[in-house]
């Protein structure tokens, strides 16, 4: 029984790590630009497929229609593919900001919601043309065997996902709190006008925020592909859950978003252990409860400004 619990906890933390990364990606653009990329789901899917393409390209192997060979992900190729997917998604993030967000940012209305959703629909159509609708099995760089930890069966990819997610979030936190660029991002998040008075190029920071946010989504796609299979429809579910995690944790607090993502992942897999079909009901009831009692999220704080 204990083994089952450990197994559930590890998968919950791994999936939660992915939620946390994506939740963080929502928070990054929300705090700096007061907008979000509602095509984040498509960015996740694209990340996975760009990762697949990179694996095949780097290994020189041919992929089947529904699976790619295990050796393609071996050694340095998986991290290299992850990096490529992150960068490509980051560049796409700059594009979506320039084309679909900036024309509407800071203006009244929510046009950016529609324009980013539209961008996502276009992306998905392009993706379907290139890669087709079938899911592709992606190998894990550590193989698809099962590790035994205290009797519990743990998939190595789950450990990779968890370790990568934690590493990225620790680095992000350090950058935000300790470096010049992090302080500039916090300044823009607090007030773009005042930030510009510090000589900060607010526009550049906003572009950087979208690049970073989208890069994280692309990376999340590569990380989750060996567990969930790459599919152009996989991203939406992750984005929705991650967004919920961000709301639970507090959209304006990056650390809160990370906790929210992990809480959601662990909760989901625990409920799944008990009654799989109750998963969504419990998760979304929790979100509604949290919002009813703490509209700013569990870790969000209503800011106090002296007058």
């Amino acid at each position, binding site marked *: 029984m204990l083994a089952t619990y450990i197994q559930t906890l590890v998968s919950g933390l791994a999936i939660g790590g992915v939620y946390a990364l994506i939740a963080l990606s929502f928070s990054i653009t929300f705090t700096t630009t007061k907008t979000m990329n509602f095509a984040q789901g498509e960015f996740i899917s694209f990340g996975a497929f760009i990762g697949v393409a990179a694996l095949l390209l780097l290994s020189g192997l041919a992929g089947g229609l529904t699976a790619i060979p295990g050796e393609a992900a071996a050694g340095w190729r998986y991290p290299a593919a992850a990096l490529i997917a992150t960068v490509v998604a980051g560049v796409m993030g700059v594009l979506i900001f320039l084309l679909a967000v900036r024309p509407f940012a800071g203006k009244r209305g929510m046009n950016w919601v529609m324009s980013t959703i539209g961008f996502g629909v276009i992306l998905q159509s392009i993706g379907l043309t290139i890669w087709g609708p079938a899911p592709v099995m992606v190998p894990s760089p550590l193989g698809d065997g099962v590790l035994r930890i205290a009797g519990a069966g743990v998939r190595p990819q789950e450990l990779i996902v968890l370790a990568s997610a934690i590493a990225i979030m620790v680095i992000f936190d350090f950058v935000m709190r300790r470096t*010049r660029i992090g*302080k*500039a991002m*916090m*300044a823009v998040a*607090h*007030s773009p*006008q*005042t*930030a*510009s*008075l*510090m*000589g*900060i*190029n*607010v526009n550049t920071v906003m572009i950087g925020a979208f690049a970073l946010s989208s890069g994280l989504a692309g990376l999340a796609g590569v990380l989750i592909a060996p567990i969930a299979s790459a599919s152009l429809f996989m991203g939406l579910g992750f984005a929705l859950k991650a967004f919920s995690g961000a709301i639970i944790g507090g959209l304006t607090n990056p650390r809160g978003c990370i906790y929210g993502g992990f809480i959601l992942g662990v909760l989901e897999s625990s409920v799944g252990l008990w009654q799989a079909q109750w998963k969504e009901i419990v998760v979304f009831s929790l979100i509604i409860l949290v919002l009813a009692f703490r509209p700013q999220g569990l870790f969000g704080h209503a*800011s*106090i*400004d*002296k*007058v």
Partner: protein
Amino acid sequence: MLNLKNVHLAYGPITAVRDASIEVQQGEVVAIVGGNGAGKSTLLKGIAGLMPVDSGQISFENNDITRMPPHVRVARGIALSPEGRQVFSDQSVYDNLTLGAYFRRLSKEALEAEIEEQFKLFPRLRERRSQLAETLSGGEQQMLAIARALMSKPKLLLLDEPSLGLAPKIIQEIFAIIVSLRKAGITILLVEQMANMALAIADRAYVLETGRVTMTGTGQQLLHDPKVRAAYLGVTHTAA
């Protein structure tokens, strides 16, 4: 040094500054006085680049800066300590000061040295260097806002109501600091509710009424002008 020619500034359909022509010479302290809603803060925002200029021209050191974005103006030497202080409440006093020097890319040692200079000017900030800015009192936040603006090593310092909400003793301190900054060679454009104190230290001053410049003269002239005294110094015509 700074030259505004027939500047119009508006918030959408609401014109806040009309046809303003204002000049600030190198080394001067120039005051802008006027009632609530006269357009004083709007004028400073226009000079700092926070608002687009609808018509007219702003030049600084003989360069046209009318369309220059705010972060570039800071690098050229124009710093604004904004109305309502606007400190970064979620960052420490130290980090706020660091941000003031953001574009200068100072080495760690140079940054420390300059922050130390600000602490000499505002000793209260030294004891609170690691505190979040939101935990400072209003007066301390005002000092932080001025110190932060000074961290950019400005040639022209724009101060929007530095005395707002401060105790009389602190106001005295702030004005003493303004005078010392002028001695240090910084040109100052000062917007103040404390019109008498502002006019007393100002070389020249402008009176702004509903967006228009209605009067200008030396600080002393305006200080003794019966209309100014009646409108802004709380002194009636008969008493003057």
